[in-house]
């Protein structure tokens, strides 16, 4: 369509490190590019990022466009947008993908409007149809339905959720082209005056999450869940009411208005399973529910359920698993 060809992936970096979702997008992008027999490029903005640009090639890109400037070290919305829009107008990719991170979901819409094109948010699947149009699959209505969306304009743009696509194995023998681009700085409006990195848990990255809900009686009882999580280097999660009541920090909140998680194992303790909570955790590989109420909705999404009191079950389960798995 109108000379648009190939795919381009936005490579997100924070603190000089490429976000793993970008490698996942290169993995999926490579698969689609091979299917369409077109090229896959990536665009990276940052400061002294030459080596990271090479990594984009190792993970599947044919070309990496690099905008390297001290002013691009931290995310600046308007500078990022300006340079990317100019690049898209020059290269004309038919598909442009970003991670559905906070940064991607702030930047993507600006690029889409600047190019007057459609943008599909927070996709969990991508495919191409018989006419080589991109099919974008996204959950809607708290994950109750999956919508298949096509875009009539070019480029077809999507943000893609972290941890749903597979990255390729890193291949340092892979050759590609690093193209240094001239950086244009246009933003006198937004000034970053401070950046603070909060320590603590990164629940979106955790392999094991043990979450508590209304079934907990006291804030300090999260310690019981922590004991189980610690066996596997896991973290503690929470449903929203306990976060709202100040029992535990927002960074632990799983659900629609908190964090979307995709651990290998999710153990829900005393959580009934409101739609807003289920929206945040139904992507877990294995779900275990522990609840006194056998009619709790959480049991309907669980692989394994125990009808019982978490105050008895969790300590017993911890001690049984400790015997077998503790390393």
């Amino acid at each position, binding site marked *: 369509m109108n000379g648009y060809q190939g795919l381009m992936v936005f490579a997100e970096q924070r603190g000089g490190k490429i976000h793993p979702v970008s490698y996942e997008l290169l993995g999926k992008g490579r698969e689609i590019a091979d299917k369409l027999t077109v090229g896959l490029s990536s665009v990276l903005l940052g400061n002294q990022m030459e080596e990271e640009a090479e990594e984009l090639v190792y993970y599947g890109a044919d070309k990496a466009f690099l905008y390297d400037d001290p002013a691009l070290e931290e995310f600046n*919305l308007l500078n990022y947008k300006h340079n990317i829009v100019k690049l898209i107008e020059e290269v004309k990719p038919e598909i442009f993908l970003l991670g559905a*991170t*906070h940064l991607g979901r702030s930047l993507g819409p600006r690029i889409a409007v600047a190019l007057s094109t459609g943008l599909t948010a927070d996709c969990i699947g991508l495919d191409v149809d018989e006419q080589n149009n991109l099919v974008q699959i996204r959950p809607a209505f*708290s994950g109750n339905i999956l919508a298949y969306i096509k875009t009539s304009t070019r480029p077809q743009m999507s943000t893609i959720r972290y941890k749903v696509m597979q990255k390729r194995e890193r291949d340092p023998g892979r050759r590609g082209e690093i193209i240094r681009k001239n950086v244009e700085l246009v933003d006198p*409006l937004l000034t970053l005056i401070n950046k603070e990195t909060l320590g603590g848990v990164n629940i979106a990255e955790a*392999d094991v999450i043990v979450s508590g809900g209304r079934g907990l009686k006291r804030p300090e009882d999260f310690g019981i869940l922590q004991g189980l999580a610690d066996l596997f280097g896991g973290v503690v999660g929470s449903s929203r009411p306990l976060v709202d009541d100040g029992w535990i920090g927002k960074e632990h909140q799983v659900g629609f208005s908190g964090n979307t998680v995709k651990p290998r194992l999710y153990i829900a303790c005393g959580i009934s399973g409101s739609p807003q909570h289920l929206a945040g955790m*139904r992507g877990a590989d294995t779900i275990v529910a522990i609840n006194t109420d056998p009619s709790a909705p959480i049991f309907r999404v669980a692989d394994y359920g125990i009808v019982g009191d978490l105050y008895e079950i969790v300590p017993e389960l911890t001690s049984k698993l400790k015997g077998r798995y503790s390393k």
Partner: protein
Amino acid sequence: MITIVVPIKQVPDMERVKFNTETGTVDRTSAPGEINPFDLNALEAAVQIREKLGGTVTTISMGPPQAESSVRDTLSRGADRGILLVDRAFAGADTLATSYTLASAIRKLGEFDLIVCGEKTVDGDTGQVGPEIAEWLGIPHVAYVSEIKEIGEKFTVICDMEGDRYSIESRLPLLITVTKDINVPRLPTFADKLKARKAEVEKWTAEALSSVADPSRFGLKGSPTRLHKVIVPSEAGRKGEVFRGSTAETTAKIVDAFEEGGVLENIR
């Protein structure tokens, strides 16, 4: 004095709304419409700023005629003026067309200093309309704002991005999208509700925007993204084994199930 605009959306109550699991459609009659919960935080933030600086808060919504009740609701929660963009020509809009229509209405209002949006809606869940409005208007935006530090000639806001907290300073005009952390929205008093019941909600049609907008960008025809099909995911693949009995029995069964299923094999 500050002129603030708050775009809002009427959404179904997600805890109560029913889905037709055959067709994947939403039965909007099954739950009453309400203001998107994130928009309540946006409205509260706007009202708090106006209380300090003086000025006006105008809410704008694009929606069907019944969305008037949600716009009226904003008048009981501190908005000075409420506008509903209502026209069949607006129907079927994706985020590009929605943001264009809202941005056009904001242009038509004339001067503005600050636009405050909720970070996303509970039904669409795109979070795109706020940043897209900013791009149409050619103004900067900061998304995921959890705190407003300084207001006045310049604004300083805290933006949370996955564990990093950025303090960002901007001149006006500016658009921000706010998270639920920013405040606790106040509840309207009975007197507020009574007053709002009598207040006028202005209704603007496509015609009303004709001096500032290209009507081919409205609604379905201005929407490049199209829903191709909908499927209802089953919780397929979930084993759904529920164990009952003594604590000793049930925990033993879970441990066995973990072993058989290799659940813990690839964990560290």
